[in-house]
């Protein structure tokens, strides 16, 4: 079973991920790719509290995840792959573009230098260009916070 959702969300694991997407997609495993969390057992404990027992939760650094994408893609578990930022997703796509054909922008919030593109998507011009580059390399990028809202294709994100 391919990875059923590749999501960029700077809040990492929260209700939209676990409930909003997890239920309708029948997610059986969430893989959080984040170097900081992968190195912190107490942060991992925090995120485990947000995930029901029937969903497996794994933590991986960018390097670890890059090496395991092919295994996850071939695995039977319906998997949601989550990063907290664009550079991490770019690195994963570079490692295995077949595993990450569609990229979901779920939540990229305000920071200095970013401007609002959608209510839940703020990007700098450089970040917008990086996402365009991802599409040029074969990925389909769209924004959608939860399944009940309409997806917005990258080309329609101002």
């Amino acid at each position, binding site marked *: 079973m391919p990875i059923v959702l590749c999501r960029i969300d700077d809040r990492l694991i929260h209700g939209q991920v676990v409930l909003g997407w997890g239920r309708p997609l029948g997610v059986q495993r969430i893989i959080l790719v984040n170097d900081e969390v992968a190195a912190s057992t107490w942060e991992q404990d925090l995120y485990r509290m947000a995930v029901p027992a029937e969903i497996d939760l794994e933590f991986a650094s960018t390097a670890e995840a890059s090496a395991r994408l092919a295994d996850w893609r071939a695995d039977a578990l319906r998997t949601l792959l989550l990063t907290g930022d664009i550079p991490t997703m770019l690195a994963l796509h570079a490692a295995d573009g077949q595993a990450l054909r569609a990229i979901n922008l779920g*939540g990229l919030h305000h920071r200095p230098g970013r401007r609002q593109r959608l209510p839940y998507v703020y990007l700098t011009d450089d970040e917008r260009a990086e996402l365009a580059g991802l599409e040029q390399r074969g990925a389909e990028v769209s924004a959608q916070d939860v399944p009940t809202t309409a997806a917005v294709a990258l080309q329609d994100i101002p």
Partner: protein
Amino acid sequence: MSEPLRGVVVCHGRMAAALIEAAEGITGVKDALLPVSNTDCDRGTLETRILDAVGAGPAVVFVDLASGSCLIATLARLRGRPEATVVTGVNLAMLVDFVFHRDQEPGAAAERAVAAGCRAIKVP
């Protein structure tokens, strides 16, 4: 305690402000509670909002869910701060009790607020 406890309510959307407005309307006690919303911010910004609201003194932090971004941001920044006690599952009954018992230690005020909140959950 010389300084009354500060209460901080951390919730999704506009829930914290609405709960505080209701608590103030019931009790008449103003400025005992501060709202924090997770709207339009990443985790770092949410953590900053929480720290700014809690300040340096004793506090009880009420969070809406026992998981999710509000709780994770709260625990991430208040870990190792014994003068700040975190309570999840906030409801109006908790806050109404809390504003009248801000002379207690954070742990004691939190325990009695939780008891009040639980007593308010019934199938009448």
